[in-house]
């Protein structure tokens, strides 16, 4: 009975700005942030959420239905499914981060060069980007992963490489707009070197849409990495990667549906949350 007043006090103590923003935010957005926060916590400190090992099970306790002992039941080798999902979050999240980072950095560089230099360089780069955009992202990722070999990082690189073209096209458009603006001309006029102007004025002002796209890409990267994991191109077993969990559980769909439904729902929740957040980012930036 003592806690509710304390909460009210805490809010009023922080001032009305936070409260307003919290009220203004839709419940969906709050929920999305909560989901992402939870998953990040899983990745950072899995031991807080489960005491079971993700890779070593008790074979005698195989295929148990969900119970207080095993929140989401156990798989065919007696491993706790909840523990596997929690421990798996670090693979999915780090993979998605690597993928987005690769797409963002490489795509931005390409877009910056193409948009600022223009002419033949622009044409060449953009035609390459056209070709990349014409190939379905999953197909491109698969081709890359066949060449580089299977594994979590390789899958992340493959997904990231497939998103370079999207980033490049987006950044190029912004760079062209910013490049022609008066303050950039003024910066050149006042004697700034080409590289310095690009770095100090063009790049920072061209990145807003790229960041919103990155948030969106984060969700789809998780989905793509799970897809690769599901198809068996990602982390090797017994790594509890989410896509692999779904793939391993699907054989038991008629007798133990939760083995594939639970990791599937987690992936859906995280991807939807990332999408929701990216929409909010896109809207709040001018």
């Amino acid at each position, binding site marked *: 009975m003592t806690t509710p007043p304390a909460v009210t006090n805490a809010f009023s103590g922080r001032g009305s700005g936070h409260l307003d923003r919290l009220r203004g935010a839709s419940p969906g957005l709050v929920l999305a942030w909560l989901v992402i926060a939870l998953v990040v916590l899983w990745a950072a400190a899995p031991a807080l959420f489960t005491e079971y090992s993700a*890779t*070593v*099970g008790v*074979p*005698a306790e*195989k*295929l148990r239905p969900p119970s207080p002992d095993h929140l989401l039941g156990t798989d*065919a*080798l*007696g491993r706790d499914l909840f523990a596997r999902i929690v421990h798996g979050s670090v693979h999915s999240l780090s993979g998605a981060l690597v993928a987005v980072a690769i797409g963002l950095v490489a795509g931005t560089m390409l877009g910056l060069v193409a948009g600022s230099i223009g002419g033949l360089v622009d044409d060449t780069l953009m035609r390459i980007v056209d070709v990349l955009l014409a190939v379905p992202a999953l197909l491109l990722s698969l081709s890359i992963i*066949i060449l580089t*070999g*299977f594994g979590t990082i390789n899958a992340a690189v493959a997904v990231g490489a497939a998103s370079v073209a999207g980033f490049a096209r987006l950044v190029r458009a912004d760079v062209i707009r910013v490049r022609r603006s008066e303050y950039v001309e003024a910066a050149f006029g006042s004697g700034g070197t080409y590289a310095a102007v690009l770095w100090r004025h063009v790049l920072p002002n061209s990145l807003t849409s790229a960041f919103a796209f990155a948030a969106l890409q984060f969700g789809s990267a998780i989905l793509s990495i799970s897809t690769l994991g599901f198809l*068996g*191109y990602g982390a*090797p*077993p*017994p790594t509890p990667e989410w896509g692999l969990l779904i793939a*391993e559980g*699907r*054989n*038991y*769909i*008629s*007798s133990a549906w939760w083995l594939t439904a639970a990791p599937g729902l987690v992936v859906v929740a995280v991807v939807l949350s990332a999408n929701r957040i990216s929409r909010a980012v896109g809207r709040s930036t001018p």
Partner: protein
Amino acid sequence: MSGTSSFATRRSLLVAGLYALSLASLAMAAPALAQPVTGGTLIYLEQQAHTNLYPTAGGFYPNSGILNQITDKLTYQNPQTLEIEPWIATSWTVNDTLTEYTFKIRPGVTFSDGTPLDARAVARNFDTYGRGDKSRKFPVSEVINNYDHSEIIDDLTVKFVFKRPSPGFLQGTAVIGSGLVSPATLDRSFDELGDATKIIGSGPFVVERETLGKELKLKARTDYNWGPARLAHQGRAYLDGITFIVTPEDSVRIGALLSGQADVIRQIQAYDEPQVEAQSFLIYAPSTRGVNNALVFRPDNPLVADARVRKALLHATNTQEIVDTLFSRHYPKATSVIASSAVGYEDQSARLAYDPQRSKKLLAEAGWQPGHDGILARDGVKLELSIYESLPQPQSKAMLQLVAQQWAQIGVRLNVLNADSGSIAVDLLDPLKTPVAHTMVGRADPDVIKSNFHPANRDVLRQKGGLSDKIKSFVDEALNGRLEAIAAETDPEKRLALTREVQAYIIDQAYQIPIFEEPQAFAAAPHVKGLAFDAVARPSFYSTWLDK
């Protein structure tokens, strides 16, 4: 005591009652049971698409499921007694040294393209299987050893001559890899025979059409009249046709069967058995009677070159736990290199015991010390092995993960890998990449051990001079010599003794960790009658009929 006996009486009464009831129902169903119905198309769901259908490649389950329906063999191996009985050959004679086999061929047999199946055709078949054909890329059959040439005595008599005694040859004429095909098929090159319509056999069914990788339709030959002499059923097959549909997803096959969209499915996993049996569908799990489902080592890899390391891993593998966790009563725990129903079997279970303490001792003797991460290391090299999931083996991925978990307890890491089939095929030839592999092979003859281990055949240990050119030094002449002796020994008793000896040798060297006796698990709807399997668990639909 009285309690027990009254219980026993009650139970026997119950049994008697049930028996009477079943007799009554049998009596009612008797007309249907007694008279097989001709007609209908059977839907057969296959887990994997077939590969090349050149008959000697028939060992692959999906291939044999098709080849067994469209080709006949010279002889028939009775799946119950394992005796060799007449089929296309009505009789045969063998000389004392087992170097000459003469077969009398049944008159009036034709291939489905109309060519007669005579001495000339049989000779052409075995010349190709026994010697291979480099120009057409045909490999040598693994079931025919020491083959020299054929002689056509008359239109229906053919003699095969061998360089050295070939005691396994008679059984070799009965196996799936020795299906007889029309000379027209052998005129093509190996690369063309991935197309099932190009395989012209004399079997009870012919290939009607095929959508590669998806579906294959067989139709019955109405003029077929040369089934194995021993079978009660003669004449054409009861079924009008069979539709093979490739359905890789386990749950889809089970669902289709239980909902009545399929009649027979191949490869039902142990965890699906209860729900199938609960609906009174039938599970057939005939034994493949060959080399057990096992992990084999490639000793050319320095990590597993030491027999003590291999032995340690053998004793660290808890096969009972694997069978209990992942499999069912249809998958007996392995007790030797070959299955207990195989010819020449000898129980080796005393030397296959689960004993992790002994493993630790053996590894310590071999110089492996625990590193800071718990994994054993020697001279800075970690004892970390890799293995590929083996798609044809049931639940290979889950099983290998369990083995990895068991080996982790003695400080050995096993990575379970997966890749595209092209990379797997290349990596499996390189012991440095795959020091361990998951295999099995079925054949009801002592030669099966040679098929599996000899460098000229499947070469599972990857010896120098075998299938792989990446081998630096590993050769085991003692093993090869023993295997060749089995293939050439003319006295059946001595042959079995040699077979027992080689099993002991393989376990002594710990070349192999036998896991379980692999059955081929099929499930069929209750209305499918007369489903038969050959001696190595390949389905035969010749006498099958649909009671619906």
